């Protein structure tokens, strides 16, 4: 019960999805998105002391069906990790499916997270052409990868909460 209220409260903090769209390409459908956010002082301090952070993007494509429950065509998530090497003073951003990027400054690293590479969410053929899908996108700092005490702390510590509202738009499959 308490956990549920936390989830809803968390959704209201910090991250704004400035742009989100689905592009059809040769190898499948890609999500092209941009986010606007700043790290809270607590998070910034943590990352500079070497605590790794993870940012997860969730996307879900559903097709309403009048005769049955909605068809969940795509449900996918991607986690981008941000890490600071205290010894070499380098920020690493690692995205699944691409090379680890190194940055000298935090802003550069965050820029890579704010404007991530386009993400292949579904292979070609996963969507029915011509059908209209409801797309739900959400982006948040993933606490699953934190130490458990930090997870507990995040219950009622806004320093450790960073999440976007759910952004919903429709997409007509091409």
């Amino acid at each position, binding site marked *: *019960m*308490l*956990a*549920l209220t*936390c989830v809803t409260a968390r959704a209201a903090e910090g991250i704004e999805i400035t742009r989100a769209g689905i592009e059809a390409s040769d190898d499948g459908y890609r999500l092209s998105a941009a986010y606007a956010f700043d790290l809270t002082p*607590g998070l910034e*301090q*943590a990352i500079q*002391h*070497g*605590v790794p952070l993870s940012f997860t993007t969730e996307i879900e494509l559903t097709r309403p069906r009048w005769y049955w429950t909605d068809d969940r065509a795509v449900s996918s998530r991607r986690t981008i*990790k941000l*890490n600071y*090497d*205290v*010894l*070499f*003073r380098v920020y*690493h951003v*690692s995205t*699944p499916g*691409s*090379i*680890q990027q190194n940055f000298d400054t935090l802003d550069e690293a965050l820029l890579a997270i704010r404007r991530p590479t386009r993400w292949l969410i579904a292979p070609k053929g996963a969507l029915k052409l011509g059908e209209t899908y409801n797309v739900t996108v959400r982006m948040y700092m993933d606490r*699953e990868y*934190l*130490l*458990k*005490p*930090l*997870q*507990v*702390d*995040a*219950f*009622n*510590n806004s320093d450790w909460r960073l999440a976007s509202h759910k952004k919903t738009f429709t997409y007509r499959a091409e």
Partner: protein
Amino acid sequence: MTQALRYALVVGSAIASILLFLLASASNNSGFFAHNITWLLGMEIGVAVALLVLVLVAFWRLYSRYKAGKFGSRLMVRLMLLFAGIGILPGLVVFMVSVQFVSHSIESWFDVKIEAALDSGLNLSRAALDEALADLSANAGTVAATLAGQGEQDAQSILARAVDDSNGMQSALLLDAAGKVVASATEDRHAVAATDLPTPQMLKQAAMPGGYARPEGGIDDDFREAPGEQATALDAATGLRLRVVVAVPEPPGMAPRYLQLTQGVPVNLASNAAVLSTAYREYQERYAARRGLRKMYIGTLTLTLLLAIFSAIGAAFLIAGNLAQPLLVLAEGTRAVAEGDLSPRPIVETNDELGTLTQSFNAMTGQLFEARSAVERNRAALESAKAHLESVLANMSAGVIVMDADGVVVNANDAVHRILQVDVAALAGRPLDQIDGLEVFAGAVKRAFSAQSAQSAAGRGRGRLHWQQQIEIPRRPGTDDDHDITLLARGSRLPVGAGSGFIVVFDDISDVISAQRSVAWGEVARRLAHEIKNPLTPIQLSAERLQMKLADRVDEDAARLLNKATDTIVSQVAAMKRMVDDFRDYARTPPAMLAPLDLNDLIEEILNLYLSEDGSDVIHPSLQPGLPKVMGDATQLRQVIHNLLQNAQDALADRTAQGDPPRIDIVTEAIHYVGADGATGTAVRLAIMDNGPGFAPKILSRAFEPYVTSKARGTGLGLPMVKKIVEEHGGRVDVANRADGSGASVSILLLKLAPEANLAEA
């Protein structure tokens, strides 16, 4: 506390315990539950809330019972508070200490000195790396200077010499502007240096003053996810290396070339630096998490405390309920006993003193029940005996009056009412001599008791506890019967209540007196008849002789006088003879010769003499056919019927009423009755009724006494004769006026039936 509440508390506590255990395991930072710690926490809080609700409900129930003053609730409250206190206080103390301990110890782990040491170590590592990098950069500058303007072959040898000269240098590459290897030398001859080419960004940076100088490697395995980035042998050996890329200072006009030098960091430095950086990171992570850790511990502790408190309260309720229950059962029992319910209480199934107490309580109520039922039985027996006595008294033919010492009537039976015509029982509580109509009786009784007292005082009559006396009391005025009642009364003293009392038993002996009178009359009549009859014949003969002898000798006048006188004498003597014969007949009725007889036949035979069959008959027989034969003397019964019919006809002659025609009914019927021995019997009843004036009240009660008659002529021996004959036949005769007051009715009941009557019918 209801059963459901109990079970809910027990189950809730059990769930809470399990969840607490899981929560404690989850704090180990591993395993399945670690991932679901939030859900565990949520569930735990939910269970705590549920338990809280349960406990509140239990409290509320207890409070309302306490308010209502329900029995046992005070004890429950005391026990409950006691047990809850015992459970809660130690828990609170442990909780306080633990919270203090946890918050202080966690803070103490994160020491400024440790942090400073880690910082210093980190700086030291960085400094060492920086120095090595600076050395390598200087080396690179030197090599680059020598490489300037050199051809490919020279460059190769220069590079090889540089690698050989330098300690720890892994590789030296000379690249052109496009990044292509111009010349290379490696420490390990077999390694393929071409795999470790600088990126275009590095080359770009190298073109700037200062060049590119960066330590590489030592990256967490987690981040080495990109495909194609294979761990090189060098990486595997040290994990850390230094890379320097500088632009070769070419003479003007030549294409730019770049020199890359890579050098492994000494293994102990690399490993120590890696350990240090890991430790630093983990320390920082923990430092950031210290608040969460404290929250987690305190939260777990608080939850544990809450659950323990609620469970303790719940357990207190259960224990208090269990302890108080036998007492409540006993209290309920005492109240039930006070209300008279002696049924056994449910026994508390324990072996301790409480169980024994309830058992002995039940034994006590059992004995009480036994005693009470014995009393009940005795009372019922007494009551039935009393009722029996009362019914005997009530149905007694003799009148019984009980008085106290002052002569006040205490009790009287129904027979008193019947005999005295005064309902004395209804007047109980009044002195006997103040009851209307009993003044004579009361006076006689009082005198009798006084006389007895006097006799006792005089010393005579000792041993006789009662007196016996015949009392004549006049009929009450206003009744239709005006002759006296003769009572035979017996009185005795008896103890009634605290003082003494009197009891008077009396019987109406008017009938007995009447019977005695009849017998006396019979005897008188027999003697008188005998004495009178003897001189009658000589008188008659003498008179006839006088007439016969003197008739011729006297003159005509004298003769006429003589004849007249003698005729008078003879006729009067004859009348007297007849009267004497009647007396004799009454006194000397021959014994009845009983033989089987059909009463109907006899009546029909007699009626032949009376009936003219012309429709003007006043006699209407109504004879029941199939009447059983009776034992009787036909001659005597014939006389009875004649007498009764004669009486009826005489009565009809006296009637003055103009209304109904004169009428006489003769009825016979068989009567079934229940004898004293319980067997059913059959009797024959003969009734003769007329619609004449009926019996005068004075006559009615003495109708069967001789010489009592309402007729101008008649000896008054008719009905006494009838009675005598009927009684000789073992029957009963009864005279009465008809219920509607018109005429008389005589009814004869013949009880002796012919023994062979049934056989004859069969």
